[in-house]
């Protein structure tokens, strides 16, 4: 969305600017103006990203929108989506912050385990979500190794439940939170932590009272990214959790199904999702831009 902060940064200075103090060491060599081929390509790139969404806005059935969005099927999906995405975000916070701490610590590890860990965290980010859904089904489905045990011991099946929606959302959005927090952890000034430790604070106290407040903006940014990603989750959800109104049919799935019978409703739902994402990202920009370079 806002790529402006990237303009002044050459590829070499971009990553180098992460030392204590934050600013790039070399300073911007090419300030302001871009060579015309670069500007043209960037313009096309921006059009590729923005035009489809603009078309959505243009085609939206604006006059019918209140009626469409007030439909029970829509409200049901809306409530389900917001609830599951919130729970998923909470889970991601609980799990992702420690994972980010591990990831930040892994910088000192030998090459292989460090890369393996990073790859493990990154894979869900680049994996087609449907693949994630299939994988979750293979693990937690009735015939999966864990799913089978859950059914034998507790008589519970995971797929087709609201819990499965949350699990799918956590799977796809956890990396967003993890990387946002990791970035914040790495750019945080370690000397404060050292000072606290020198003054006798335990590791947990340092983490709780020094590190966490330092990275709080990064955590908040990560949580919001995580929430919007969870809200948009489709592939893993429909594959793993199914699609039942009120239980597993989230906004994206409702939108997909509506596209088959009532395109106006589908467009209205799509617009709603787009609006939420844009509002969230716009509201967040100032805080997350310096931290997250995802």
């Amino acid at each position, binding site marked *: 969305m806002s790529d402006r902060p990237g303009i002044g940064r050459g*590829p*070499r200075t*971009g*990553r*180098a600017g*992460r030392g204590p103090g934050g600013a790039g060491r070399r300073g911007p060599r090419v300030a302001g103006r871009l060579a015309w081929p670069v500007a043209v*390509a960037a313009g*096309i*790139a921006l059009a590729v990203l923005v035009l489809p969404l603009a078309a959505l806005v243009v085609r939206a059935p604006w006059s019918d929108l209140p009626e469409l969005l007030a439909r029970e099927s829509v409200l049901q999906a809306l409530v389900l989506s917001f609830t599951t995405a919130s729970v998923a975000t909470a889970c991601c916070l609980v799990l992702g912050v420690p994972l980010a701490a591990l990831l930040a610590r892994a*910088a000192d590890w030998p090459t292989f385990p460090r890369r393996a860990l990073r790859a493990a965290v990154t894979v869900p980010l680049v994996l087609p979500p449907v693949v994630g859904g299939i994988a979750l*089904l293979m693990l937690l*489905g*009735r*015939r999966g190794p864990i799913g089978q045990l859950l059914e034998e011991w507790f008589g519970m*099946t995971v*797929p*087709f439940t609201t819990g499965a929606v949350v699990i799918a959302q956590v799977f796809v959005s956890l990396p967003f939170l993890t*990387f946002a927090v990791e*970035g914040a952890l790495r750019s945080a000034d370690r000397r404060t932590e050292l000072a606290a430790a020198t003054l006798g604070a335990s590791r947990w106290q340092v983490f709780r009272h020094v590190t966490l407040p330092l990275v709080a903006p990064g955590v908040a940014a990560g949580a919001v990214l995580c929430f919007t990603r969870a809200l948009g989750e489709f592939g893993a959800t*429909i594959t793993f*959790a*199914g*699609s*039942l*109104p009120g*239980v*597993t*049919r989230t906004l994206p799935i409702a939108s*997909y*199904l*509506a*596209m*088959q*019978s*009532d*395109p106006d409703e589908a467009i209205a739902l799509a617009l709603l999702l787009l609006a939420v994402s844009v509002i969230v990202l716009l509201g967040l920009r100032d805080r997350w831009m310096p931290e997250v*370079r995802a």
Partner: protein
Amino acid sequence: MTGRRIGRMPRAAAAVGALAALVLAGCASSGANGGTASPAPSDATDDAEATTLTVFAAASLTEAFDELAERFEAEHPSVDVALSYGGSAALAQQVVEGAPVDVFASAAEPPMQTVVDAGLAGDPVVFATNTLELVVPAGNPAGVTGLDDLADADLRIALCDASVPCGAASVKLLEQEGVVAAPDTLESDVKAVLTKVSLGEVDAALVYRTDVIAAGDEVEGIEVPGAASVVNRYPIAALAEAGDADTAADFVVFVTGDAGRAVLAEAGFGKP
């Protein structure tokens, strides 16, 4: 993203640039073809004579149309049939939105009507019929015996969503038999339902009898007494904006003719 990767950035950037060029080239050659599931007709092949016939067909036609396409290609060596399967309603929607399709075969008449209403299909011909069957995983682990079991909240049940033909037929059948189903998921096409059954994730589902046949040993079909009176009629039509109208018409004739009849009958489809 560690500092160690700095040295690789220019190479990565070059790769991204090359990729972008490819993508742009792709955009240019496929013109206004929207984001559809159909393979774009390749216009840069060495065989300039080849015609690609793009066929959108209901998911339930998968096996039959794979076979039909192969036979059609054997009879017409210069034609390459590209098939895209999916929920009929979704396919119809894509056709209306301008997907470059030559022939559309739907699992029910309403999606075809959508296309006809948009002025995109001439005279649809009903070429096959299908009925529903109860399907359970191999071995029937939950001991399902009949349609009434679909009302059992303790069983895992999958049905098609009412917005797609198999779902509409399911609703009709359940209403007719007075069963209030307790589904755990309403899928967007019949093959998605079938998959949940063959994976053993659900105990029972309603699919077309042709799907039960196609799935082979992984599932078992249970005939439902009232199913014969809920019949899905499958229409096919060459589309008005077909790239090669003659080949499209030929394909429709082929599907509705003797060869098509034989393949469809073998797959379990009823006569029109």
